[in-house]
């Protein structure tokens, strides 16, 4: 009894997935603007910021997002020869809860786009995205295909673009260094929560 009950739950899930993909395709026609609001206002970074940015940029854990060929260039840069752990990227985290960075190693198709968006949403702030490879930047060699998303910035805001097909491990490491420079200039506004004064609280509301 449960098995065929599950069968129609599964076909129902397939149909629902088809609709989310169609809706997603209609929604994402414009690329997301690249997040760089913290670069224009050349605000002074206080030493608290220096401490926070040093902590944030020194250990960035990437999430598993390996659709295609760039995955093996990424694994090669993680392996012992190009050793990404020199930059604090110790291991590839399988779940977005424990990751800060999404390296999009591979071609993005419309069927995968909602899953990538879901992974990005489930990552904890502050989070960053590196679009790796020509397919990540603009759909690359498959741009004219009916099923390829022309670039990850249609799905998630991208911080650093690493060109190449696949980019060499050194290029990826240079991209990560750029991201670390970008993080070093972040500024977090700290608000000291003032205890609510009894008199002024009513007026302030």
């Amino acid at each position, binding site marked *: 009894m449960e098995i065929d009950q599950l069968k129609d739950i599964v076909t129902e899930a*397939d149909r629902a*997935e*088809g*609709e989310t*993909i*169609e809706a997603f395709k209609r929604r994402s026609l414009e690329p997301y603007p690249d997040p760089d609001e913290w670069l224009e206002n050349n605000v002074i970074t206080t030493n608290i910021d220096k401490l926070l940015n040093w902590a944030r940029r020194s250990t960035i854990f990437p999430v598993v997002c390996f659709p295609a060929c760039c995955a093996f260039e990424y694994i090669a840069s993680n392996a012992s020869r190009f050793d990404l752990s020199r930059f604090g990227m110790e291991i590839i985290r399988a779940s977005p809860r424990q990751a800060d960075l999404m390296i999009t190693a591979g071609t993005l198709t*419309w*069927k995968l786009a909602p899953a990538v968006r879901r992974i990005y949403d489930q990552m904890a702030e502050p989070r960053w995205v590196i679009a790796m490879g020509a397919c990540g930047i603009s759909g690359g060699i498959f741009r004219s295909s*009916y*099923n390829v998303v022309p670039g990850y910035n249609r799905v998630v805001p991208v911080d650093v673009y690493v060109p190449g097909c696949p980019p060499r491990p050194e290029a990826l490491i240079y991209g990560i260094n750029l991201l670390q420079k970008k993080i070093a200039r972040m500024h977090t506004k700290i608000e000291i929560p003032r205890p609510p004064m009894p008199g002024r609280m009513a007026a302030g509301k």
Partner: protein
Amino acid sequence: MTVTLSGNDLARTIGARLPQAVVEANDRWVLVRRESIAQFANFLKNTPELSFDYLNYVTAVDYHDYFELVYQFTALKDNRQVVVKTRCPRNDATVPSITPVYRGADLQEREVFDLMGIKFEGHPNLKRIFLWEGFQGYPLRKDYL
């Protein structure tokens, strides 16, 4: 060297049992009528002297006014192979499925259905394989832009 069994003598051997199956035959492949492709495959696999037990691939080609399905079978023991073709008109593109005979054709026929739009009767689970449920159209057709 893999010997390609010529279509003519394959037509002769099968012609005895399935008289009206073969439409056309030359030295490279055999063209079979659309309705009898399933029995043809069954004969290829089960007659002792033929025993083509390995299916290499199933694919379809869009020739504007008809679709052509290409099957290639191999007899592993004595290293012989044969190419079998069948055609179906563009408007009612349905072909009997050979999945009950060769289990390997399951995913490949689903792929032909998904990308070319040819339905296979008797296929256990004919659904889109690469594209999602609500996708309009069949991409590999020549008129799909």
